């Protein structure tokens, strides 16, 4: 009989195994060509395994807290990773080999899953690094692209810097409370040192999530990366990072005065800078980077509302990740600049129409996932009395319509004289995108069954 603590980690074990197989798969006969597909299957199994019931939620001396929120996020991470790998199996990473990409993605997903259940400073940091390290490589995957490498270096250095700042904060927390467990963090009498610790941790998280004013690395890093890498890096780690950030900051927020004010400020800045800076972008990767900044702003609105905002934020993060990944996958197939996406509607009509669906969800048009995400998020925030913040957030979501529809307009522009050939059709890649489209609709319409495991209830 396997002990419960190990059984609950079965999904992570599957991912680890699959990642190792992918990494060394070169030497396994018969699997070399289909590594990504194999990874997709493994991620699917991992997502299914998460759903197995378990009685307790605290494991390994409460180093891991596998509560319904964590499980919800783990299912989402597993499923999104599976869809991504399915797509990768069909399309690959351009001219580069895609085997390593599959391995890296699986490692990142493993780190992400662990992050969502981290309930201890050490677990958190290890999981965070496990999730981030593969992202460096994925961002710089096009080895011959000099501009891409510049972005990668920038991303690597900044990410390392923020990791260190966060680590310093975590160390301070440990010094002050004498424990690394979230439950026994004690800052009541810590004074300035406690404040510093909280500031460092918060800055670290905000930078990792690309929240303003620590967002500046994202557009450059994304613009230098292959669109397929952006599809993964901008979606799955966001879900994991959000859960981890919410857990630790909410554990701190009662003990550190002014933390929720700081989160609220970051929310406003992110929504403002993200939405406005997205306007002039002509590269879809940069545009989605700024749109990601804006969406982190909405997530921070929920966190500003305190622990009641947790489940709404997790739901919203998933509702953001699905269309965001899908748009970048389409972009990876059809072109990253607005120019190259022009007249997509006549090249590949269905891709243009599902893009509309994804953008509408990001704006928050019902009955799509993004709308219900915003509905719950605003409900929680209003309940916490954050009326000005909510009014600002809804106004900003109207602003976002403008730049998303610039892309739509480009897609539906009349075909110009020179026609760009459509990407070669691939049933597998198409099915990955269709799955994401169905999810965008279903997560919205079937919000009930999804919200139940999350323990969400409208205030």
């Amino acid at each position, binding site marked *: 009989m396997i002990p419960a603590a190990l059984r609950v980690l079965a999904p992570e074990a599957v991912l680890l195994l699959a990642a190792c197989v992918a990494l060394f798969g070169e030497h396994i006969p018969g699997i070399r060509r289909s590594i990504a597909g194999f990874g997709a299957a493994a991620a699917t199994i991992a997502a299914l395994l998460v759903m197995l019931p378990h009685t307790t939620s605290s494991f390994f001396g409460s180093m891991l807290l596998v509560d319904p929120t964590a499980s919800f996020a783990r299912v989402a991470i597993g499923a999104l990773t599976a869809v991504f790998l399915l797509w990768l199996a069909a399309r690959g990473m351009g001219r580069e080999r895609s085997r390593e990409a599959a391995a890296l993605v699986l490692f990142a997903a493993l780190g992400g899953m662990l992050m969502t259940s981290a309930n201890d400073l050490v677990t958190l940091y290890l999981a965070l690094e496990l999730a981030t390290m593969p992202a460096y490589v994925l961002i710089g995957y096009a080895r011959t692209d000099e501009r891409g490498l510049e972005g990668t270096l920038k991303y690597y250095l900044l990410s390392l810097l923020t990791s260190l700042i966060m680590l310093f904060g975590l160390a301070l927390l440990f010094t002050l409370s004498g424990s690394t467990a979230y439950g026994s963090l004690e800052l009541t009498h810590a004074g300035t040192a406690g404040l510093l610790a909280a500031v460092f941790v918060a800055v670290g998280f905000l930078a990792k999530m690309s929240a303003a004013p620590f967002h500046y690395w994202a557009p450059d890093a994304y613009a230098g990366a292959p669109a397929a890498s952006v599809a993964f890096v901008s979606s799955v780690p966001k879900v994991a990072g959000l859960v981890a950030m919410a857990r630790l900051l909410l554990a701190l927020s009662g003990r550190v005065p002014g933390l929720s004010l700081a989160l609220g400020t970051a929310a406003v800045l992110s929504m403002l800078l993200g939405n406005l800076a997205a306007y002039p972008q002509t590269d879809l990767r940069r545009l989605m980077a700024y749109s990601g900044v804006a969406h982190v702003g909405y997530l921070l609105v929920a966190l500003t509302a305190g622990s009641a905002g947790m489940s709404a934020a997790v739901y919203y993060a998933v509702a953001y990740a699905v269309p965001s990944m899908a748009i970048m996958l389409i972009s990876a197939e059809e072109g990253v600049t607005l120019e190259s996406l022009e007249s997509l509607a006549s090249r590949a009509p269905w891709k243009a129409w599902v893009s509309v669906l994804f953008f509408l969800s990001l704006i928050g048009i019902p009955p799509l996932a993004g709308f219900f995400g915003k509905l719950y998020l605003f409900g929680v925030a209003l309940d916490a009395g954050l*009326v000005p913040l909510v009014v600002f957030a809804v106004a900003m979501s109207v602003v976002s*319509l403008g730049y998303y529809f610039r892309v739509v307009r480009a897609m*539906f522009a009349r075909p110009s004289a020179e026609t760009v050939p459509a990407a070669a059709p691939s049933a597998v890649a198409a099915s990955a995108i269709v799955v994401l489209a169905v999810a965008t609709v279903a997560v919205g319409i079937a919000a009930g069954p999804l919200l139940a495991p999350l323990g969400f*209830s*409208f205030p």
Partner: protein
Amino acid sequence: MSWILSAIVFLPLAGALAAAMLPKESGGAAKWLAAVVAGVDLVLVAVLVAVFDVGKGMQFVTDVVWVPQAHIRYHLAVDGISITMLALSALLSFVAVLASWKVESKPSTYFAMLLLLEVGMNGVFVALDFVLFYVFWELVLVPMYFLISMWGGPRREYASLKFFLYTLFGSVFMLVGIVALFLIKGTFDITQLASAAPALLPHQQWWLFLAFFLGFAVKVPVWPLHTWLPDAHVEAPTAGSVLLAGVLLKMGTYGFIRIALPILPDAVTKGAGTLPPWQPILVVLATISIVYGAAVAFAQTDLKKLVAYSSVSHMGFVMLGIASLTPEGINGAVAVMFSHGLVTGLLFLMVGMVYERGHTRKIEDLSGLMPQVPRIGAVFALASFASLGLPGMSGFVGEFLSLLGGWQAATAKGALFSPVWVVVSAVGVLLAAAYMLWMVQRVVLGNPSRVVGAMDDMTGRELATVLPLVALTFVVGIYWSSLLRFVDPAVRALLAPFGGA
């Protein structure tokens, strides 16, 4: 028969999906599919009207849980006001399909969009759960955006995005209001919100009314939030204009009648502390809309713009009737909504026919429709007369009742606004007569201009498109209670929060 409402709402969705799936080379299949779907939907609505019991309030109720955690329900029902609007929506959707018979560019997408639009329009008028209402409310934006941006005039991209941005801007504040209302009352049910405890505090009511006002007033549109309308109308294809003016604008005034008034009565009549009551604000804005719309219509050289600004003016009468809070006024408001849907739909159809033949909408290029193309000229003239409120046609009923209601409210004891506003509004009727007759004189009468000289008269299909609208205009205009017997009981029920006026 509670299934019938769901069928009416979602049949066009099935049709839209089917149309979108049609292969590119299917040619005319899409329009036949759309015509059959919209036709069957219209028949279903006709059956509904036939079996509707005017004395019974909300009927054909479907009420099941949708999202249990968030207390969102799938709640549909109709009362006399809803069924009137539903009938208008289904009728004009069918007419819009017939009017689009000659659409050549991407017909399957086009008709899918028209049918999708019908889903949203039908849904808004029968949804009684606030979130469901909002879903349908926003659903309308997307197909209309594409109808304008893909099949519109030269400035379609500007106009379509402006339409989308303006109306979304209004409606997100409505969403905040919906959520805030839920947090206070604990329900999204529109019928229960009016009665459920706890009672709303005066300042809560006032601010919530502001949120709903922004959502609804942009749609109506009330001056000064109307600037999207002329652009959208001018650039939209004919069917788009018909549905935009005929149905979409009514969603705004329907929202005031169904939601803002019954749920937030004190905001309208009492205000909150130093914040003024909304009734006089609405009356003043309505009057400005009436006079401003009419005055600007005078100056237009483009037929479509003229009709568009006349819509601003007519919707002002609806707002005046609503703001009067009297049974007469609100009956009048609903009557104007119904009549304006028929008449403006008709006017846009006629402008569309003229444009299709002459490729111009400039009033100076057009004259002598009557001698050259008598059918077009006659229907054009009839629609213009109905629009200016000629007694015996539908336009008169509502405007008369709206003004009557406004006058009653202004002269009642403790009135919140002066009768002067009603008098100024009545001048709007004169202005409407003036600009409409002047237009008829220039366009319909006289010697055929060069452009008109080359025109052919209406075809049988076109005649079939306009005749039902013309007939209904006369039926409602002559036999008022054919319409008002549905509306009146529902209006009186809605006015209960105002002391059963």
